[in-house]
């Protein structure tokens, strides 16, 4: 079940599942099952566990531990930019061969 703080006295965030649609559209795969290692605190968590601030000029995913930015996704008129400088490693499950 998605988590969110909508309704709290703070800017709303939703969980990383909110990235499933936009990332899937761009990458053609479900990246919410990927794991990101935060460049700030070095904790590794599923992308779905990140906090996504979606009421902004882009989607901003932050580490729930240290609040550093782990991913930014911006749609321009004809491009999608995925900024991952806040993630040391992106680990993506693949089918066992």
């Amino acid at each position, binding site marked *: 079940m998605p988590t969110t703080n909508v309704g709290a006295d703070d800017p709303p965030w939703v969980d990383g599942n909110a990235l499933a649609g936009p990332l899937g559209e761009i990458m053609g795969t479900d990246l919410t099952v990927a794991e990101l290692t935060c460049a700030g605190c070095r904790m590794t968590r599923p992308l779905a566990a990140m906090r996504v*601030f979606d*009421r902004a000029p882009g989607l*901003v995913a932050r580490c729930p531990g240290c609040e550093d930015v782990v991913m930014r996704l*911006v749609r321009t008129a004809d*491009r999608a930019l995925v900024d991952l400088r806040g993630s040391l490693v992106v680990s993506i499950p693949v089918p066992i061969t």
Partner: protein
Amino acid sequence: MAVITRGFGGRRRDDADLPPGQYRTDDFPVLSAGPTPRIGLDEWELAVVTETGERSTWSWAEFTALPADEPTVDIHCVTRWSKFGTSWRGVSVDTLLADVDTAAEYVVAHSYGGYTTNIPLEGLLDGQAWVAYEFDGAPLAPVHGGPARLLVPHLYFWKSAKWLRALELRLDDEPGFWETAGYHNDGDPWREQRYLED
């Protein structure tokens, strides 16, 4: 100094006053790329740092004792809403830089919470920008950037950094949070400079 934007002062505002691609709202939407920093006024400090590393700093009491303006300006968000006739109280960037010796051409605004945005220095001078601490006659709410935010109404509102902590004067340009993620380096709403390719 009071700043009255064009069209303000009796004439009914209409879509002709909107930059291209914008719609009018009477709300004040809250957009945020992260949690709201909570900064106590006793620990708040504003700094201007020159390209040689010289720092000028103001405590809250020092900052709010500076001469203040009450600009009334239109604001334009890159997410396409515009709000007419917003009323602020703040210190002009001209005042903050009056005694600062610099050859810088660029500024990076730094926020509590880590946000940054870059603006050419000339875009902040001559009554074009303020560090605002009141909105509509009340202290600026934290969700809108309080205790104090940059106010640069002639650019898209992402350039008006909330929770301002420092203005860094630089000889070279250093793109900020959104400028490195696909948004335009300059952000002029009248030229519709939204994205990097615009």
